[in-house]
């Protein structure tokens, strides 16, 4: 938030010096910053540790569901065979 205040010193004018402007005038840095902002990440998504952990957890959950369902199926088959005898 900005607030104005009175400056009684009229000699204290706010004009930048040519040296000050020269110090901040740098197109190569600007171009580099722009390139960094717009360039897509070279790192593959699965190489990101957080994303990899998420994939790993999803994989474990799917494996558990698969094991559970196959075990259930096996039990049902055993029951069916026992009933026919």
């Amino acid at each position, binding site marked *: 938030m900005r607030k104005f205040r009175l400056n009684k010193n009229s000699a204290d004018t706010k004009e930048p010096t040519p040296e000050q402007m020269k110090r901040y005038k740098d*197109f190569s840095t600007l171009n580099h910053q722009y390139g960094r902002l717009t360039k897509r990440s070279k790192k593959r998504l699965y190489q990101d540790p957080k994303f990899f952990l998420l994939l790993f957890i999803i994989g474990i959950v799917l494996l558990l569901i698969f094991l559970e369902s196959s075990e259930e199926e096996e039990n049902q088959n055993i029951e069916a065979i026992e009933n026919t005898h």
Partner: protein
Amino acid sequence: MFRKSSQHLTEEELVKRAKSDVAYFELLYDQNFDKVYRFVFKRLSGNEEISGELTQITFIKALGALGKYEHRGFAFSSWLIRIAQNEINMYFRSLKKKYHVDIHENQLNQLSIELETAQEFTMGQQEKLIDLLNNLPPDKLDLIELRFFNGLSFKEIAEIYQITEANAKMKVYRIIEKLKEQA
């Protein structure tokens, strides 16, 4: 070599080429950097480092939005100043503490002439006027700042806002009328 061959190009042509070749944007950067930096520097009351950062951000945003830029007969710098103005306002909004901007007596006197206050501008009146300015909405304050503290002409203000000169004049004088009522 490249600079020499581009010297004959108009600003409009430079902008057109800069849309597909960043080397032409460098020429626009060189031509307009000082004007934008000076504008930001004054608005920030002489903060050299932040002015440098905000000027760089202004040009990065301009480079990113250059594809959407349409030349409507206004100077390219007025578009840059508009981006810079938005960046400055965003910077002020992001601050938790108050940022004090100095106003000099002579700048305030120019405004008081428009307000037709008494010949002798007393300390109390100055303080009251600063209070009124501090309570203005940011968009209105921007106009007052551009006209009276940055010393821009109505034509330059009109170019920044991409409105007519008469419209710019009307907007400024409406704010002055309101200030007069409150003063």
